[in-house]
């Protein structure tokens, strides 16, 4: 997760307008999810992999490692769709009968499973494209422009910031505990872990009060107003989006 976050700030597409990246990723994701064939998801996957690795300059191994995370989840859920258990042994494309129970794959189920698998992978790659090229702070400004309620975007700003503050605190406490042999046995690990959590909880209250005070000192009145950096709007990018999406949508329509 931290990896994704630091790549979002350091990639070759960071200067591209966040709305353009979000639009591209979202439309492609919808097209991919709506596709009736396996070709569209494959194209989307290739497109996003190319975008992430060649355009954004993110190392291929990082992308592969990230894709492997949903891969295992997907594989398990897809297998349950592909396989069925039945007392009737006919109609299976591939099967094994043990004591009257047949475990096997129906051909249409297999197709559905492969479909689902590729569509999900394709959609995930779209999300990774967005996550790896666009910092959360910029996504939040896009959400603001889309008139998402302020309460949600403000909470996102604070939560995002404090994930890191607390992770840092937790890491420090953990290191301090480890250096005093807090995690050598199972017993001490449990004790140290509970200590860590209660210390963190205490800090949450102190930090939130401090944050409020510090914001009040800068004339906070209940609404977080910040200036966002302007990104240049690039018409070429919109042409690229249109140029990519139209063939994909046509492909979807043809596949019906």
């Amino acid at each position: 997760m931290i990896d994704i976050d630091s790549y979002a700030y350091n990639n070759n597409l960071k200067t591209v307008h966040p709305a353009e990246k979000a639009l591209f990723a979202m439309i492609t994701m919808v097209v991919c999810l709506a596709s009736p064939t396996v070709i569209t998801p494959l194209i989307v996957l290739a497109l996003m992999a190319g975008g992430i690795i060649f355009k954004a300059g993110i190392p291929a191994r990082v992308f592969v490692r990230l894709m492997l995370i949903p891969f295992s989840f997907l594989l398990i859920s897809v297998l349950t769709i592909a396989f069925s258990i039945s007392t009737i042994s006919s109609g299976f494309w591939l099967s094994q009968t043990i004591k009257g129970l047949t475990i096997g794959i129906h051909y249409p189920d297999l197709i559905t499973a492969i479909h689902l698998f590729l569509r999900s992978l394709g959609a995930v790659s779209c999300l990774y494209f967005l996550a790896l090229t666009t910092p959360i702070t910029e996504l939040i400004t896009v959400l603001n422009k889309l008139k998402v309620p302020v309460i949600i975007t403000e909470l996102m700003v604070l939560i995002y910031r404090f994930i890191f503050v607390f992770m840092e605190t937790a890491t420090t406490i953990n290191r301090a505990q480890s250096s005093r042999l807090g995690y050598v046995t199972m017993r001490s690990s449990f004790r140290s872990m509970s200590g860590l959590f209660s210390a963190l909880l205490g800090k949450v209250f102190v930090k939130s009060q401090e944050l409020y005070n510090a914001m009040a000192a800068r004339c906070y009145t209940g609404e977080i107003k910040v200036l966002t950096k302007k990104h240049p709007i690039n018409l070429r990018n919109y042409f690229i989006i249109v140029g990519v999406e139209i063939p994909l949508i046509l492909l979807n329509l043809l596949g019906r």
Partner: protein
Amino acid sequence: MPEFIIEAVNVEYSYPDDTKALLNVSLQVEKGEKLAILGSNGAGKSTLFMQFNGIFHPNSGCIKYQGEAISYKNKDLIALRKKVGIVFQDPDSQLFSASVWQDISFGPLNLGLSEEEVTARVKKALLDTETTDLQDKPTHLLSYGQKKRVSIAGVLAMEPEVIIFDEPTAGLDPRHAKEFMQLLEKLSKEGKTIIISTHDVDLAYSWSDRLAIMYSGEIIAHGDPGELFLQPHLIERADLALPWLIEMHSEFVKKGWVPLSTPLPKTKEDLVRNVPTKSDQQSAK
């Protein structure tokens, strides 16, 4: 008669758990002066600062801004906080946004300025704190010193009349600490009133026009830095130490290198200048 910009008048304050944090504190801050508040940890410096812009209410006594007791109505508090800015000790509790640019723009936008004006102020604050290179970095990838400078920029951009720095140089490396002191000098020349808290006696002595020493919730002394540091019992009582300049100076006086009437040196250069060169001494014979 000097004009007082902020005053604490017999301020008493205890935390909700009944810890007495401030005991009958009275302090007057002159407009345009450089005031250092010295005190060991837990002396009540930060608590006093929170009184100065109305974040904490005194249990008794009052805070005056330009001679008038401050009002704790929301609108008046906002007006006060436009004038009195605080840079907090822990930058992590001050930076609320992951974007450096957004965080610095928060204060000036709250002042109701136009976007152009805010942009100009953010840029100036970035320049003054040498954080221009950091503007596109997320705050969580910055070092402690960098965060500290960004949090300073966030308050500078509001251009307050009085700027309060809580332990500003703690955690800064020598180079940035020195540059920070130069920035303070610049702000002071622009006519800002500057209050810092510190337990760095050398810094407090060399920089400040006036010094207040706090010890467990009380101001036990205030006045000219030179005079205060010549009272060793006071310094000891407050768990502080003597600035090296004064220690060296007294040693030189004791050994007869420097006449007793010589004024206290404020800088290293002063100290060196006070000591005569060898040939001078020979000709003096």
